[in-house]
Structure formats: C-alpha cells, structure tokens
C-alpha cells in the first residue's frame, strides 16, 4: 500500500516535470524532458567509463566513512573514559565542526596533492563529528544500573565501558553513523567537484559546464540514488549489529 502511494507520487512528480519541460516556460536545452534524461541515464549506465567513476566515488565514500567511524569511536571511547580528554577536545571540536569540509579542499590540495588521501581527509573531517559526538554523549551517560551491575561482577572500568556501555550506546552511535554516511557522500562529491580527478562530482561539474544538461540531471539522479542506497546499507548494518535493540524497542512499544 505504502509502495503504491510512493509510486503514484513519484509518477506525478515526473508528470509535472514533463509538463514544465514541454510547456516551454524554461528552454528545453536547460530543462530536458523525462525521456531525454532517461536516455542519457541509460547511455551512462552502459558505459564502462561512467561505471568506473561511480566505483571511484563509492570507494572513496565507503573507505572514508569507515575510517571516520573507527577514528570517531576510538576518540569517543577515550573521551568517555577520561573526562579531562573530553573537556580538552570540546572547544576544538566545536570550532572544527563549524568549518565546511569543502572549504578545506584548496589548502588540503597543498598538503595531500590530488590523490586518494585528499578525499579521505575531507571525508573524515566531515563525517567524524557526528560519530564522535553521538558516541561520546551516549558513552558518558551510561545507565547507572548497568554500571553498578558491572561493578558488582567485579569488572574493571575499561570492561564496563567496552562490554556494557558500548553495546548499550550502539543505537545512539548508529544515529550518528547514519548522519555521517550522508555527510560523507556530500563531502566526497563536493571535493570531487572542487578538486576534479574523477568521481561523480567531477563528471557532474563537467556535464554542467559543457551544458550537457540531460547528462547532468542523469548524474544527479545517480548521486541521489547512491545516497539512498548508502542509507539502506547503514540501516541494514544497524539491523545486523543491533537487531536485539530493535526487538526490545518493539516489545516496549504497542504498535
């Protein structure tokens, strides 16, 4: 039922697009009709070159995201263990978080060149904060009962942190990871637009500058779909890692 509604809604959207394109309110070379975009998309999808660029973007985004998650978690665990570290990092995190990651691209090119390190740096810079903040918050405020139980079993502070608080914090951490995934793709595409050197962002910018609008919209569609798939991947891994929590929450609710 919900799928039927979605399909109807998307079809209406496409119809509206088609009407605008055909009406001639905006020049068709800037606003191609749906079939033209569809043909452009089909042409792209069968070209090995395009698939290669798509793979480049995905590889950068996924590796960058995994690095961000690993670094963010380690940092958050240390910060949760030592309150001083947490407070030490606080103003720095506030300041760095306010910086738009793409703004770092020009200077990072000096530091890292145009290689893969550049993209990883930009992605980590963008995606580490949601992970760190959600994990640090969740780990620093554990359930007192859990901590007391752990202590009663004679667990050390580290054991309590890693074996009790960390699993308990997983749902919140995954909220941060979900945010980070979106941000990682965004940062990667932006970096590719600015720095060039392959990837969907580069193709998109190229298509726009050479006024291949049908290609441009088709690439945008691919970028959007990539975001959607990335989101689904995070949701699936969330179910894989913390399915127990989802079941518990379902039992608690009366849906």
């Amino acid at each position, binding site marked *: 039922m919900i799928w039927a*509604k*979605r399909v*109807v*809604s*998307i079809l*209406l*959207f496409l119809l509206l697009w088609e009407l605008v394109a055909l009406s001639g309110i*905006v020049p068709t070379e*800037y606003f191609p009709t749906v079939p033209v975009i569809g043909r452009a998309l089909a042409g792209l999808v069968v070209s090995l070159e395009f698939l290669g660029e798509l793979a480049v973007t995905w590889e950068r985004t996924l590796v960058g995201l995994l690095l961000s998650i690993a670094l963010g978690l380690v940092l958050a665990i240390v910060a949760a263990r030592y309150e*001083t570290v947490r*407070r*030490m*990092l*606080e*103003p*720095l995190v*506030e*300041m*760095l978080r*306010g*910086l*738009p990651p*793409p*703004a*770092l*691209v*020009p*200077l990072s*090119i*000096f530091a890292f060149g145009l290689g893969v390190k550049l993209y990883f740096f930009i992605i980590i810079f963008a995606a580490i904060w949601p992970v760190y903040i959600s994990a640090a918050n969740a780990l620093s405020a554990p359930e007192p009962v859990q901590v007391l139980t752990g202590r009663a079993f004679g667990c050390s502070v580290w054991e309590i942190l890693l074996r009790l608080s960390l699993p308990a914090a997983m749902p919140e951490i995954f909220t941060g990871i979900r945010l980070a995934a*979106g941000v990682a*793709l*965004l940062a990667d*595409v*932006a970096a590719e*637009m*600015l720095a060039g050197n392959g990837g969907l*962002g580069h193709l*998109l*910018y190229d*298509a*726009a*500058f050479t*006024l291949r*609008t049908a290609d*441009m*919209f088709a690439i*945008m569609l691919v*970028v*959007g*779909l*990539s*975001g*959607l798939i*990335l*989101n689904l991947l995070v949701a699936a891994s969330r179910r894989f890692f913390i399915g127990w929590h989802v079941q518990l929450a379902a039992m608690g609710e009366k849906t």
Partner: protein
Amino acid sequence: MKKRFNLPGLAFLVVLALIWQGIAILVDSPNFPGFVQVIVALFHDDTTLAIEIGYTLERAGIGFALALVVMLPFGILLGRVRALGDLVEPVIEFVRPLPPIAMVPVAMIFFGTGDAAKIFVVAWSASFPILINAIEAVRGAHPMLSTVARALRLSRVETMWHIDLPAALPQIIAGIRLAVAISLLIAVVAEMLLSTNGIGMYLARAQERFEIANGLAGLLVIALGALAVNYGVLAIERKVLRWHHARIGMHAKA
C-alpha cells in the same frame, strides 16, 4: 544550565597552537606558516576578510530566510493535511538524498553565477531540515491537541497557527538550527564553485596564489563566524522556547 569555564579545553588549544608554531619554526618554509603568521595574515587582511565574510553571511542569511518563510508554513500544512502530505512526501524523500552541492550546476544554468544562484542553492539545502522537522513535529503532536482545537471550533488555518506551530516549535527549532549551519556551509561552497566574491572565493584565491597563511586565516574567520552564529541561534532558541524548557525542567531533575 551551568556554564563552567573549560580550562582543559582552552589549555589544549593553546598547546596545539604552540606545537604548530614549533613545527613551523622547524620546517621553516613559506608553505608551512605557523600560528603567528596566520594571525598576522588575519589582521593584515582584516578589512578584506570582514567584507568577504559579510557577503557570505548575507547570502546565507537571505537563503535561509527564504527557506524558512516558504518551508515552515508548507511543512505545517503537509503535516496537518494528511492526504497532501502522503502525496508530497515521497517526492521529498526522492530528492533529499541529493547532496545540496549537486544543485550548484543546476543553479548555474538557470541563474548564472550571480547572487541569485548562490541564494537558490542555500535556500534549497536549508529547506529540507525545516520542512521535514515541521512535518514530523506536527504529525507527532499529542492527539489531545487536535481534539482541543476541534472543541474550540478553530478553523484549519487557526489550528495550524495557534495549535500546531507552538506544539511543533521545539522540534522545528532543532531543524532550524541544522538549517542555519547548512546555510553557512553551502554559501561558502557555492562561492568556491561560482566564484565572484565572498569568503569561499577568498579561500579559492588564496590557494591559487599559494598564500597559505591567508587561506588558514580565512578558515579561522569561517570557524569563528559559524561559532558566533551558532551561539546566536542558541540564545534565540532559549528565549523563544523558555516555556518548553521550563516544562522539561519540571520533569527532569537535572
């Protein structure tokens, strides 16, 4: 909310700056400016930087205001009128995963590289957090509130204005805070891609001229600007939502 002076945090920043300066002295290269050089560049270029960040803030502000004025009522409407919401929401979900920066080329084609293009991209990207939070907040409001509205015989528009808006405000403001941060971010990036002026352009130019100290000074200005805007929004939020925080405070004992 107790505000303590964060001594370790400040000390850490100072230590980092000292280490940075130390390495810069050791490396001794114009391509690796130290902290002091960046501050010197900051004050050397202070009028230019102030003007450029002014452009950026202006664009971010206009774009954000546009998004707020259009999307807040629209979101409340979509949340309140279920059938309409069901129809439009899949479309929102469909275009939302698109990175806002991917809209820059579209804006360029339709609006050129002037102010309008950048403002459009900012407004576009700021729209989603506002819209989605407004819809969710209105839908998630306590069912009792709708009953009250009906008992008071409020019209649909009155219900939206007097009941839905205040009830949804806490969550909407969370969305607004996100939208403000995004506005600034996108304004800078749009300026880097469609360069005419603004702090994004300043950064791009610093790169072209190998003026690394100036580039870092520009980044510092953006970071401080973002921090200031964030505090401003927090202050406004605390004022607007005083009643809400007061109620939460009654429940929690923190």
